[in-house]
């Protein structure tokens, strides 16, 4: 959601991208994908290859092996850490990526820049496995679902320590309870912080009305005196250590935190929250469209989607997989929030440069308060 307009920085990014792309390109050839390594050179001429670019550790590698076995297509599997990393490597153009998986806001940005190819949905036989509920969410950044196929999704919610919080947690309002003075961690990023009062007031987290945002600011100011700290990635460790009773965090971090400390729990408040999506899409650098569509389709096949769900354990948009899950998994709010909460969840949409500036101003005001 960040806009990068600076000339100096851009040239720096390009340079860094060229360097990293060079390093990664070499790394892949000698790295773990040894058997499929030669395909980078073959990509331009060969037709039985596919270059896939995904977040690190975000797939069960066994499914890639199965895909190669069943289709005879050689997969060159590359990984990245942040969507910004992905974008710089993609722009450097050293590797012609055929298929990329990344987050909603980055896809929205790339669609508006004309860097994404439209999907031929008729070529995918398992597309119907996708739950229309989630496809509808995706229309916020991909109207008509023309460009992106959801892979996993997650939410922003409250992680709480059941030893320190006796009551039932189901509303954002608990973050204003003076009982928890100096025990609350808030997200240290603008949109994630403002969504809390906006949702509590029953408003859209994409509101652009100054009145709504100013009221949200007043609520955050009022809350600041009982907030322990504003954190981003450190919040997970602080929750695990038991430093705080309540923390606003991403569902993926919550899963990891609960793994490390079983006294922790996660809930998406009933007023709703942000829902985010990681989706597959074909960048304009795609040279093997048919193979890429086959790969997406393979990912949507019930058995494969189930394997990846077990491995990643984020929310799956695959209805065929969801329907067969046991009740305990379905009730796990780190993966599947309550229906009431989900019905009030929204995807962030880009609000424009002017709104971004307005948000920055409010954010500074909150921090200086």
């Amino acid at each position, binding site marked *: 959601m*960040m*806009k*990068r307009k600076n000339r100096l920085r851009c040239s720096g990014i390009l340079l860094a991208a060229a360097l990293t792309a060079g390093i990664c390109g070499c790394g892949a050839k000698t790295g773990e994908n040894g058997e499929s390594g030669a395909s980078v050179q073959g990509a331009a001429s060969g037709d039985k290859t596919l270059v896939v670019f995904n977040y690190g550790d975000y797939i069960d590698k066994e499914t890639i092996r199965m895909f190669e076995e069943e289709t005879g297509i050689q997969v060159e599997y590359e990984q990245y850490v942040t969507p910004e990393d992905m974008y710089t490597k993609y722009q450097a153009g050293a590797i012609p990526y055929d298929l990329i998986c990344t987050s909603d806001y980055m896809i929205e940005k790339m669609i508006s820049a004309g860097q994404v190819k439209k999907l031929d949905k008729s070529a995918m036989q398992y597309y119907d496995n996708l739950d229309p509920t989630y496809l509808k969410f995706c229309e916020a950044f991909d109207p008509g679902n023309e460009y992106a196929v959801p892979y996993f999704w997650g939410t922003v919610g409250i992680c709480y320590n059941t030893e320190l919080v006796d009551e039932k947690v189901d509303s954002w309002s608990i973050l204003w309870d003076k009982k928890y003075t*100096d025990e609350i961690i808030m997200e240290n990023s603008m949109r994630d912080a403002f969504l809390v009062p906006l949702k509590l007031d029953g408003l859209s987290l994409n509101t652009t009305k100054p009145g709504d945002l100013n009221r949200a600011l007043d609520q955050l100011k009022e809350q600041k005196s009982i907030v*322990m700290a504003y954190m981003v990635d450190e919040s997970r460790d602080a929750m695990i250590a038991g*430093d705080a009773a309540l923390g606003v965090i991403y569902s993926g971090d919550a899963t990891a935190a609960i793994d490390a400390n079983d006294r922790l729990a996660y809930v998406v408040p009933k007023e709703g929250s942000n829902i985010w999506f990681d989706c597959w899409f074909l960048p304009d650098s795609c040279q093997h469209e048919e193979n890429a569509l086959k790969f997406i389709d393979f990912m949507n096949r019930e058995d494969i989607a189930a394997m990846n769900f077990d491995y990643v354990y984020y929310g799956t948009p695959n209805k065929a997989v969801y329907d067969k899950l046991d009740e305990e998994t379905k009730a796990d709010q780190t993966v599947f929030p309550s229906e009431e909460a989900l019905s009030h969840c929204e995807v962030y949409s880009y609000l424009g440069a002017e709104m971004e500036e307005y948000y*920055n101003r409010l954010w*500074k005001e909150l921090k*200086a308060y």
Partner: protein
Amino acid sequence: MKSKRICLTAPYLVWSVGFIVLPLVIVLVYGLTNDNGNLTLANLAAIADPIHLSALGQSLLIAFGSTAISLIVCYPLAYILSRSHQSSRLVIMLFVLPMWINFMLRILALQMVLANTGIINTVLGFFGIPAQHLLYNRRAILIGMTYDYLPFMLLPLYNAMCRIDRDLIDAAADLGAGRFVIFRKIVLPLSMPGVISGIIMVFIPSISEFAIADILGGSKILLIGNVIEQEFSLTNNWHLGSGLSVVLMIFIFISMAIMNRRGESEVQAL
């Protein structure tokens, strides 16, 4: 001969132009222009914004605080160390030793010491004292900054006091001066250069600090350093960030000039 001299100064020249002059010029250019490349003073005037003024006020407050605490702690210590010869080297060593460890690592370690479930609270809990909220407030930032910058105060003070001629003190004592008079008339004025450079060495990094405020302040307290950092990394408004940096630099230059003038007059007064 002349070319040889140029050869010898070349590395320093390249260094100072490339890493000091050029970045300063870039900051100035960004600070004095807007997005369209037109000259403007708006980025400098932005310091008058109430948010920026209050951030500057917070920075000044914390910088004064950490400088004052360092001075109060280090002055007697430096005096004692400069008088006793056997153990002083070891003690100085103990103060300098932490500087071999990265500053940020020490701040992260301090975070673990002060946390709700940290070392101090664990010890307190052992004695049945309820956990204290030591982290994420102004006091925690003050502790962190003082901890990081204390050696910068101690070393100049120690050096200045070691240079005080013992004969002056002995002569004063022979002439009937009491210990308080000796301190006020001899030790204090002669240690002033150390005090001045100690204050400068602690005050200047403190006033532009932002990382310690983020980690130990829980991002709740906005210092002028945080504002500048956010203009670069979050808002991508390099012009405003540079403008505020220029104002901060002017601020630092003025305080250095005042300190240096006072230092000179103290020395001349002898």
